[in-house]
């Protein structure tokens, strides 16, 4: 079941055409993605589903500028990010993408507040402004009372909510979520997914969710499936 998301802008945010990606393992080239073409509208909540090794995380990494394709075009907000240098990509990521990972990846020696504040250290905001932003983000994810807690003092669900606050803090265009509920119990997973839905519906955030959990994917407005590096037709309902 998919839920209707907020009205999406007709202008595409992400335009992918004929994208290829392979990795070299020893003397062999492993083809991960083949001829991927996809458009994601601004404000869309898209789920990428597929079995392990289908290339969904690789596709997410390419869209988020963490990896470079071998071939093809990848245009985000009118910029072909395959042509950006490493430094330009870093600045672009800082502005445009917020990441949420399966294992949260919070810095264990920093408090929830400090973890959320991290991306803002690259901005010209002063300390007071940063504090205001972080307080707002933590309030949004319902963790205002946990701001001074270290990750080890938080439950998995709370840690993932801190990670979401960190992903949101720079107000990015895209939120890239890679199996964000993979390490959570059902209740915490639902909390996280509801939070993502809320971000999409209330704040019009474009969310790309990678998952192999149909229930998680059901929170998205659109589901695209990948099998063996190929994107299935939208109407193709093969089990993944």
């Amino acid at each position, binding site marked *: 079941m998919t839920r209707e998301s907020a009205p999406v802008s007709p202008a595409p945010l992400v335009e992918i055409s004929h994208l290829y990606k392979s990795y070299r393992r020893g003397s062999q080239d492993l083809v991960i993605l083949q001829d991927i073409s996809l458009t994601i509208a601004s404000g869309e909540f898209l789920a990428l589903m597929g079995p392990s090794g289908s290339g969904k995380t690789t596709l997410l990494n390419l869209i988020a500028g*963490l990896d470079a394709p071998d071939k093809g075009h990848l245009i985000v907000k009118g910029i072909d990010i395959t042509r950006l240098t490493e430094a330009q990509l870093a600045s*672009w990521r800082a502005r445009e993408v917020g990441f949420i990972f399966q*294992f949260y990846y919070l810095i264990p*020696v920093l408090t929830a507040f*400090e973890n959320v504040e*991290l991306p803002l250290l*690259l901005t010209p905001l002063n300390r007071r402004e940063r504090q205001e932003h972080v307080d707002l983000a933590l309030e949004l994810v319902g963790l205002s009372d946990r701001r001074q807690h270290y990750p080890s003092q938080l439950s998995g669900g709370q840690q993932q909510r801190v990670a979401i606050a960190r992903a949101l803090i720079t107000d990015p265009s895209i939120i890239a979520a890679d199996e964000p509920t993979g390490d959570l119990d059902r209740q915490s997973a639902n909390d996280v997914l509801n939070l993502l839905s809320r971000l999409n519906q209330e704040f019009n955030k474009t969310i790309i969710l990678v998952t192999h959990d149909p229930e998680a994917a059901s929170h998205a407005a659109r589901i695209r499936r990948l099998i063996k590096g190929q994107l299935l037709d939208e109407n193709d309902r093969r089990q993944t």
Partner: protein
Amino acid sequence: MLKLTWRNVIRHPLRASLTVLGMAVAVLAFALLRTMVAAWYAGVEAASPARLVTRNAISLTFRLPLAYLLRIQALPGIVGVAYGSWFGGVYIDERHFFPQFAVDVPRYFEIYPEYVIPENPKLSFFQDRRGCAAGRQLAARYGWRLGDPIILRGTVYPGEYRFILRAIYTGREPTTDEGRFFFHWDYLNESLKKTAPDRADQVGWFLVKVARPELAPTLAEEVDALFKNSLAETLTETEAAFALGFVSMTEAILMAIQVVSWVVIGVILVVLANTMAMSARERLGEYAVLKTMGFRPRHLAGLILGESLILALAGGIVGLSLTFPAVHLFRTALGQYFRVFPLTWGTLTLGLGVALGVGVLAALLPAWRAARVSTAAALRKVG
């Protein structure tokens, strides 16, 4: 970022403490070994460019006739000449070694203003033929006070020699040896005239003061020319060269000490580099996540470099702080071997510089690796 750097430092308190401790021990050892080398060169450092030493050309163990004094004195450009002999007596027993010199009082002390003696004791020492002067450290070592009798048993000049301590000198410079014992050459010579007349009226060396340092090389040649083809040809050299001659006898040991001092630093460099590599490897996922947020390779390199520098600097500061009591211990416990054990600003600065250098070098490889890490690959690995 500074906060994160600091938190990373204390993330593994035991590992950090042991690394700092290791660094501290290495810097302490380095500073002590360098101080030991400096102690060896103290005589060279303390030498004056306006002083020459004339000795027998064959070797220092051969003496020179006292009669040379007047001929040396007569050379233009020479403003003072004194003489002395190594006595080499035994005080109590052989373990209580300290250098003893029979010198031409008072001229010797006029040429050596570094030995500072208060006016009254100086006069008393100069006037008493059996009087002697000891350095402050030497007097403190044996609890000598002015007026105390001191008996030495001669080995180079057999017999029992009785002295009265008339003066205690202090060094004008930190490198001045305060562990020496001086007495009147005349007293020795009078004894020799009675016991071994063939050894009387001979000196171990002449100490020559020249009017200006730039005259020293010419005057050295002129002094040696005076006694060319005589039975006791001379070798005249600057006081520094004379002192360096002693140092060169132990050059291999000094070289070994210097090599060891750097080996110690090399070992701690490997230890710190391993610690940093281990830490960086453990945090690969975190570095990848920081990269996803837009942090650049230089930020990651800065984190690792900062952590390495804090550990190295903390170890360096602890090590150098421990050097002060360690040097004091060396001075008191091994004072008879290292009468001048100068912990200089140069050694301290070098120690701190070495600690910083180790901090930078240890961080290079892990920082380079972290900077080059592929974000997607690192996330795949830790995920």
